[in-house]
Every structure is written in structure tokens, then in C-alpha cells.
């Protein structure tokens, strides 16, 4: 499908979605409103709110805070996830010993940890970044770990026979073969980084989209809540586009549909 056609279809989906929402929130079906506006507001209200934010400019500061937190959480979380994933995959003994602990940590409810983060890191951006990291880290870690273990044994044998040291193996074999694994996890992580930041803000902060959302929720301003979430979503798609760019750049070597015959 052409780029234009695709965009058209995507817009159509959005339109249908918002149309249905407006309909179900305003027109009662069998005397019963499917999406009571008390809980769902209406798209019109939500858009008005976003518009107002944009015009008044109040949103930018909050958006910037959340952006910084998300990007930091994403970068630090995925870097450390990838590094430790690599390390574990190469150090089978270390991996075997720490395996149950990693899994336990992955299961700790981060929300409960918020006070500890606040204690250690204060209420500034770093406690939110920490929350984001705890989500991003595990997604990337498990995938990179598996990706490294999936590297083809033939290629590894060849690489070793070509005289590669452990470090060179990492660079020339493990890293490229774990790349597609890593990128798959990065797509999941982008979302989680933002969730971490927003939830962190939601649990204690002075700015950010999570703060906005919570403030709206406190006064039962559902339009505000949804407006915050929609801004958030837009923003994630923007970051994800970047990740996809990098991915396509790094994975040029793959056979893909685009090639074929002229």
C-alpha cells in the first residue's frame, strides 16, 4: 500500500474510534449510555481540552518534563538491560546463580517501591526515571539474553576459527545477531518508559503529564485525564518512529520484500 493510502486508513481508524466514542458517550442505547461521560467524557470535550492546553501553553512544560524522564529511563534502562543481558548470556555461571533473583526483581510491584525511590532519589525527575528503568530494563534484558543465546553455532564456530576474542565475538557476532531481538524489546520498552515516568509522576511530583492527569482525576475532570493520555500517546508514537529509523539503519543487511526484482 502506498504511504498516502496507509495514512488515510490510519486516519480512518482514528475517526471511527472517536466517532464511536462520541456516539456511545452521548446517545443512549435502550435508555442506557454505554460510555457514561462521567467516566469517559466525550472526544469533543477532550479535544477542546487539548486545544486549550496547547493555546495556553501550559502543556509544554509538563510534556518536556515527561519527555526528559522517559528518554532517560529508556536510554538508561535499555542500555543497562542490553549490557547485563549480554554479560549474563556470556557468563553462564553468573546467569545460573542470579537467574531466580532477576526473575524475582522483575515481579516486584514498582508502585510499592515508589517511597523507596523517593527516599533515595528525591522527588525530582530521578525517582521517575528509576521507576521507568525498572520496567524497561527487564524487557530488554530478557530479550537480549535470549538473542545472544540464539546466535548461530555455525557462525560462532567460524568466528572463533577466524581468531576472534571474546570481545570481538561480542561485537561481530553476538551483537548483530541479538540486534533484531533487541529492537523488538525496544518497541515494547518505549511504551514502558513512558508508563514508568507517568506513573512515577502520578505517585508524587510537581510537574509532568502524570501530574496533570492526577490533578484532573482529583477533581473528577475526566476530559483532562483523557486529554493527558492522548497527548501521551502521540508522544510515544513520535519516540517510536525514531527507534524504527535507527532499526532500519542498523538492519540493512537483511533480505526483505523491498528488494526483489527490478
Amino acid at each position, binding site marked *: 500500500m502506498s504511504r498516502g493510502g496507509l495514512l488515510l486508513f490510519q486516519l480512518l481508524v482514528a475517526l471511527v474510534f472517536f466517532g464511536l466514542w462520541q456516539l456511545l458517550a452521548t446517545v443512549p442505547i435502550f435508555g442506557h449510555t454505554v460510555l457514561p461521560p462521567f467516566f469517559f467524557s466525550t472526544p469533543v470535550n477532550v479535544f477542546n481540552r487539548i486545544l486549550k492546553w496547547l493555546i495556553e501553553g501550559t502543556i509544554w512544560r509538563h510534556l518536556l518534563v515527561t519527555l526528559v524522564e522517559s528518554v532517560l529511563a529508556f536510554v538508561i534502562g535499555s542500555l543497562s538491560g542490553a549490557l547485563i543481558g549480554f554479560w549474563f548470556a556470556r557468563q553462564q555461571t553468573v546467569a545460573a546463580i542470579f537467574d531466580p533473583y532477576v526473575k524475582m526483581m522483575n515481579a516486584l510491584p514498582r508502585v510499592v517501591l515508589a517511597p523507596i525511590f523517593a527516599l533515595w532519589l*528525591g522527588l525530582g525527575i530521578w525517582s521517575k526515571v528509576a521507576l521507568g528503568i525498572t520496567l524497561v530494563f527487564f524487557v530488554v534484558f530478557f530479550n537480549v539474553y535470549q538473542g545472544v543465546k540464539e546466535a548461530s553455532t555455525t557462525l560462532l564456530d567460524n568466528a572463533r576459527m577466524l581468531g576472534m576474542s571474546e570481545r570481538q565475538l561480542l561485537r561481530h557476532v553476538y551483537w548483530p545477531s541479538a540486534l533484531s531481538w533487541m529492537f523488538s524489546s525496544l518497541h515494547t520498552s518505549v511504551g514502558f518508559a513512558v508508563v514508568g515516568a507517568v506513573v512515577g509522576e502520578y505517585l508524587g511530583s510537581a510537574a509532568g503529564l502524570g*501530574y496533570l492527569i492526577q490533578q484532573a482525576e*482529583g477533581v473528577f475532570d475526566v476530559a483532562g485525564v483523557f486529554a493527558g493520555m492522548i497527548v501521551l500517546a502521540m508522544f510515544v508514537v513520535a519516540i517510536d518512529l525514531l527507534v524504527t529509523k535507527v532499526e532500519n539503519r542498523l538492519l540493512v543487511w537483511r533480505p526483505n520484500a523491498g528488494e526483489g526484482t527490478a
Partner: protein
Amino acid sequence: QAQDKIEKPDLVLGVGGKSSLYYLPLTLAERLGYFKEQGLNVTITDFGGGSKSLQSLIGGSADVVTGAYEHTIRMQSKGQDIAAVIELGRFPGMVLAVRKDKAAQVKSFGDLKGMKIGVSAPGSSTNFFVNALIARDGVKPDEVSIIGVGTGLSAVAAMKKGEIDAIVNLDPVMTKLDQDGDIVILADSRTDEGNMKLFGGNNPAAVVYLKTDFISKNPVTVQHLVNAFYKATKWLEKATPEDIVKTVPEEYFLGDKALYLSAFKASKPMYSTTGIITPQGMQNGLNLLLQFDPEMKDAKIDLNRTFDDRFVKKAAAGQM
């Protein structure tokens, strides 16, 4: 006898933070078996916050909520009919304090200007409380920096770390900080005189509220419910700390029993003894809202619809 039949003996009760002292009467009613006594089977669902328990009431997943009186006013402006049936706390129990090393600088509420103030959550009643106080000295809400710090450990952590300059919060957070000598209290709405000073009288806090049509459809059920709460209120009025220790689940203060008891002592005056919200109290509650929520300004509020005193009166009559 037929009219005495309980229409809906199985009830779901929502509460935001059951273990806090704010909702102690609920815990007592449950632990002392008053619901059972009244022929009610109450499932208590605990939520992360008061707004969530209200939402569950509106959404229909909870039948009754113990929450802030303020919600009944707010919901009227949103076209949702809910009404309180008994008052549990007559004072909000909120305390405003500044960090010890800042105390010298803060002589009045106006001196909070430009400071970082921790509230339980932005948009919550603690937020409005501080807004109201600073407004008296002519400081606008956006001239201070409001930070949400929660009502638990994170609030304590924030103050101890020096992340915030002042805090508005409830017990046990405030008692903990006070005991540890981290703060100097500026305004205390746990006590009679504190409330007189701040609001000129009562300012109803925790109440039991339900949807109005639920009340009219299930009057007997509501009566029994109120009976149970009323009895708990009465029990609490006479309770000594030792009684509390015996009744409240041990987990509630295993963290620090002494702390819990001093917090209880500090908070005791705030529990309602009559269960009745006075008109003065209603007006105080509304005034607080009017001052800061722009959306409330144009709303027409009929305060009489926010509290249905029939049941408490009957319960009180039955008790005596």
C-alpha cells in the same frame, strides 16, 4: 415486620485507604461485628484513593462509600445524586506544617509563597486546604509549588529528605513527622480550636455516602448500615487507647504501636460523636470548595440534598 426486611443484605463498601485513622470508625464497625449484628454482609474494598472509591460508587461496583463529605457537593455539580447519611469525622484532620529549618522564615501562611508544598495528591482536598490558607494572606495557588507526595511512607520520606519545605497531610504521617521533630505545625484541623480558627467551626470530613436512589429504594438496609456506624461512633467516643489496641487489627500498628496510639490520641477529637452534619459544617465545606475550584463557582448547590439526616436521628433514638 415486613417493612423491616433488609432489601439488600450483601453490600460492597468502598473506601480509599481503610487503614488510615481517618476511617477508623469503619474498621471498628467491622471488627466489633456491628455489621453482622445488623444483619448485613459487608465486603470492604480498599482503593488507592478517595476519588477511586467514589468512581466505583458512580460506576455501580460499590453500593456505599466511606469518603470525604466534599464529594457529595462536587457530585451534585456534576449531576450525580449522592448523599451522606452519617458523619464519621467532623474535622478534616488535615495538618499544615513546615520543615523545622524553615520554621523561622514562616510566620504566616503568606510566607509560604514560593515554597515547595507537599500535598497528598494534586487536586485532592489537602491541595485545596493549603490553597485556602495561603489565599487568606493573598498568595495565589500558582505562587507556590505543589507536589504530590501521597499519604504514606513517601510523604514521610519527602519531608525527611528535604524535598519539600512544607506539607499538608493526615495522620499518621503528621504525627510521625511531629514526633521525630522534623516539622513545626502551622495549622491543625484535628482539634476543636484548630477548626474554629481555620473554618469557624466544623468542617465535615469522613462520611458514609450512597446514591440517592439507592437510599430511597433500600431504606431499611441504609438504616441498618447507619445503626452499625452510629454504634461504632459511640464506642469510639468512650474508647481508651487500650480498647483501640484490643480492637484494631494488629497489623495496623505493628510498624510502630506507640506511633499509632499517639496519632490516635491526636486525632481523637476529630471523630464525630453525633453523626450529624450541622448546616454550619455544610456551608464551611462548600465555602472551601468555592474558593478554589473554578468549576464550582457557577454550580448551584443545594446543601440540603447532600445530607440525609433521617437515619442517624433514628439510630440515635434507638440507641438511647
